[in-house]
């Protein structure tokens, strides 16, 4: 990407983020958008964003695709690898060449078997707390430049404020209440994807896209659409079939 288009994209991203944060927004949707945007701006191919759960483990909350194989690599990253190191230290970690990264054999093997050669992890942090990490994967070898690391960090910082803003941040307890809300949204979305997988015969990535498209077209949050799908108040299997036949 040339420097000019990149800067244009970057300022557009900040404007969009600022707009989102003043409106009623959906946390999972915001995080998915963030990870998609960062993937493009930083010239990587896929990405995922993980938040810490009450047991202190990282849970995947948003990713550039909900394809089962990608989700598996991203979940692997919650167990070992640069993303976990980033979470533990609160500092960005960039690995330019996974084939020479001997610290995390299982993770490196898994990522490389899917064609990825470098990975960049950015912490989501607020003051002293680290609440998760954003992880970008590239099929190319090479470390992120310091200015790219700074760009990822700036976007992640604004998103973190977004996640935690709904209430005044007074204590770590309230921070975890917001986190819990995001983690709950993710469980609801998974349950709703299951409903669509059964009623429309979709795979999980396609099911997610049907939910997201409906949410956008009806100006609703992913969470409320997921709620309605699970309660069988709305039936998206027709939308799904239409989408399927359109390719």
């Amino acid at each position, binding site marked *: 990407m040339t420097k000019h288009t990149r800067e244009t994209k970057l300022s557009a991203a900040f404007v969009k983020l600022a707009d989102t944060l003043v409106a009623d927004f959906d946390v999972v949707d915001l995080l998915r958008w963030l990870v998609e945007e960062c993937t493009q701006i930083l010239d990587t191919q896929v990405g995922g964003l993980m938040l810490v*759960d009450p*047991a202190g483990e990282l849970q*995947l909350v948003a990713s550039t695709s909900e394809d089962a194989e990608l989700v598996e690599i991203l979940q692997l990253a919650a167990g070992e690898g640069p993303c976990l190191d980033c979470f533990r230290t609160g500092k960005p970690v960039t690995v330019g060449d996974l084939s020479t990264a001997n610290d995390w054999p299982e993770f490196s093997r898994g990522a490389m078997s899917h064609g990825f050669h470098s990975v960049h992890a950015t912490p989501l942090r607020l003051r002293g707390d680290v609440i998760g990490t954003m992880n970008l994967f590239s099929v190319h070898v090479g470390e992120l430049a310091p200015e790219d690391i700074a760009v990822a960090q700036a976007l992640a910082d604004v998103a973190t404020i977004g996640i935690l803003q709904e209430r005044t941040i007074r204590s770590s307890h309230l921070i975890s209440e917001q986190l819990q809300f995001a983690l709950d949204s993710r469980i609801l979305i998974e349950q709703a994807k299951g409903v669509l997988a059964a*009623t429309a015969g979709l795979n999980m990535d396609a099911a997610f896209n049907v939910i997201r498209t409906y949410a956008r077209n009806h100006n609703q949050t992913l969470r409320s659409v997921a709620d309605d799908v699970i309660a069988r108040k709305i039936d998206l299997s027709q939308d799904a079939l239409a989408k399927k036949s359109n390719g």
Partner: protein
Amino acid sequence: MATDPDLVPADGARTEPDLCHPFLQNLPITGASVTVVNASRSQHSVCSSDSIASRVDELQFEFGEGPQWKAVATGELVVVPDMAADLHGDWPIFWSEVRQLAVGALFAVPMRMGAVTVGAVTLYRSSPGDLSPEQRSSALAIGSAIASAAVHRAMRSALDDDEDESPTSPAFRREVHQATGMILAQLNTTATIAYSRLQAYAFAHGRHIQDVARDVVNRDLTFEE
């Protein structure tokens, strides 16, 4: 109502106080008990913080009535800020027993995993008093935060499984939630019942819930009738 006597020890509750602790630490309450319930209304006491909390839990189980059951059925917080002023229409027998204990107020917090209610936490205060809106939302958030750990602990002890897995992985990876959604559509039922069926199937076949869930997601197993 059915329960396996082995699941409920003689003292009515296991003494693992950690899941009660966040409630005691963050809310103006005296005691708490955490109970995992499934759709057939069998009950598994996970922990109680003191003997009164444990007795309240036991009474709800014994009489099949009390705020816990309402919280499980509705997925909503149930508040009884003053036991003396309560009309006790909903739970007459339970109420007449509880009034003999030093209980001024009762709250029941559903434990939710997405759209599934896996059980409830009963909180009591020795004197009457309500929870503020902020405290109510904290109570619900803590209920969701401990849900998977509570159900995992109940399942582990039901299966007599000593495997030292962490409470959230891999047992509650995405497949379990996706399978719950698929089963609820297949059976045209609620998320809570679908999850119960998944759990019951795993239990009956001596398998881990995530293995069964994976079969459902891969369409190797269907619950359609």
